[in-house]
């Protein structure tokens, strides 16, 4: 569905070098701190920037060759961009009906009503959350096969976020061949939604794992200095010096549970994983 191989993009103070894949029927998440390269990666996928090397394929075609037919099968939300703020939702209808053969006008307008989005108000007068809702509803409105979503829940309150995440799940369940690539700084959104997760830091993929494995097999070990000295570190991915001793990230939770009953083993959330992968040291 989507494949990046050694895609490179060099700016004055930033370099992207990224490989990733989104398989049919899968929801793939991208996490990373601000400025890590998430948006640049999505822009490369969408052909919004010209890459300096590598290959990017979307829906089986090189990005440079994406035509109208392929683009109508994409549903896109960008973090800091959207429909012109000078337009109203009702102004968008004729345009979207022309652009997307499968645009469901009535369903879209009904959803707008459900999410309290006024159709006769300029979009620039919407709050950040309202704008994001509008773009999410649009991305889901035309039977897109591949959703590319950059921070789609940014600016939304907790209830709206839950509703939107449920809509994503329903959308994916409707048809088997739909896929989704989603970036978010809210790790909880991705934990409960994604099949696999990529972590990007300084323009590079530093981690890729199935979410089930991530939540089931990864753990944070907390121990004293003495326990750390005796620890078998062959399954430790990262460690950090703490005021109580050490914390270590492992992908073999069961091994440490069985062999080091005195060490505290905490189940990992993605937030802790990000912190350890980025700030922790390699053995």
């Amino acid at each position: 569905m989507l494949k990046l191989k050694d895609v490179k993009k060099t700016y004055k103070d930033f370099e992207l070098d990224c490989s990733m894949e989104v398989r049919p029927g899968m929801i793939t998440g991208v996490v990373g701190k601000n400025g890590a390269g998430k948006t640049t990666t999505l822009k490369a996928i969408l052909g919004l920037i010209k890459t300096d090397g590598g290959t990017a394929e979307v829906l089986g075609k090189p990005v440079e060759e994406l035509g109208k037919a392929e683009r109508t099968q994409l549903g896109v939300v960008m973090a800091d961009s959207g429909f012109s703020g000078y337009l109203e939702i009702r102004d968008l209808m004729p345009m979207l009906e022309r652009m997307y053969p499968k645009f469901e006008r009535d369903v879209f307008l009904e959803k707008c009503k459900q999410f309290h989005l006024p159709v006769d108000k300029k979009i620039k007068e919407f709050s950040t959350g309202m704008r994001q809702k509008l773009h999410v509803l649009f991305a889901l409105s035309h039977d897109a096969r591949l959703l590319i979503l950059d921070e789609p829940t940014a600016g939304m309150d907790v209830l709206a976020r839950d509703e939107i995440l449920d809509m994503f799940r329903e959308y994916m369940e409707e048809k088997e061949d739909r896929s989704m690539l989603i970036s978010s700084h809210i790790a909880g959104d991705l934990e409960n939604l994604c099949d696999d997760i990529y972590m990007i830091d300084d323009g590079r993929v530093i981690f890729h794992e199935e979410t089930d494995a991530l939540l089931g097999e990864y753990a944070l070990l907390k121990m004293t200095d003495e326990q750390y000295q005796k620890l078998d570190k062959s399954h430790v991915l990262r460690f950090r010096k703490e005021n109580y001793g050490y914390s270590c990230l492992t992908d073999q939770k069961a091994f440490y549970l069985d062999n080091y009953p005195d060490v505290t083993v905490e189940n990992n959330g993605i937030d802790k994983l990000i912190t350890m992968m980025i700030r922790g040291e390699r053995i």
Partner: protein
Amino acid sequence: MMALLLKDLALLKQQKQFFLVMAGLVVFYSFFASGAVFTFAIVYMGIMMGMFTLSTISYDEYNNGAVFLFTLPISRREYVLEKYMFAAIMSAGSTVAATAVCLGVGYAKEIFTNGTDVVEFLAGSIGGALVTVCLMLSLMIPLQLKFGAEKSRIVWIGALLGIAAVVFGGAKLMQLLNVDVGGLINGAEQASAATVTVVLAVLLVGMVLVSCRVSMGIMEKKEF
């Protein structure tokens, strides 16, 4: 392309009050005007409506909107073509409407007394609008696409100075080469209206095509 035209028409609708005031002014002045002011009103309306194309580019880019726009099923080439098409529709539409108003008032006030008056008036006003709009937009659309709304104004002033320098320099060069400039102008004046029209039309079409091609090149290279 139709989808983009519909979008720009929707943007135009948002500015309807401004354009209604403009149209009202044209109608108002036409009641107190002579033929020369009619011509000014028609050219002015053509320019104003054509220039709205530049505003639509600004609206597209407002708040980083171009990034999202180019994720939609439109090509960059199609975007550029649509802008030129929109400019043509706006300028032609407003020129025709303003001309109709001025003709109506002109007949009612008996400013136009015979067919020759009307032909001269139409040639002056429509020709003036066409030349001015084509010249301005052929330069300003690529500049705006390349530099954005703010910077393009500065570059536009620079471009005008550059054109003036080229014209002045060209005249000086012709003098140095002993080319009879006066003779050339006299020749142009003596040429038939049809010849002048054809030469002018070819020049304008060529200029618009070159401008369109340059704009496409700018958009193809642009990163968002």
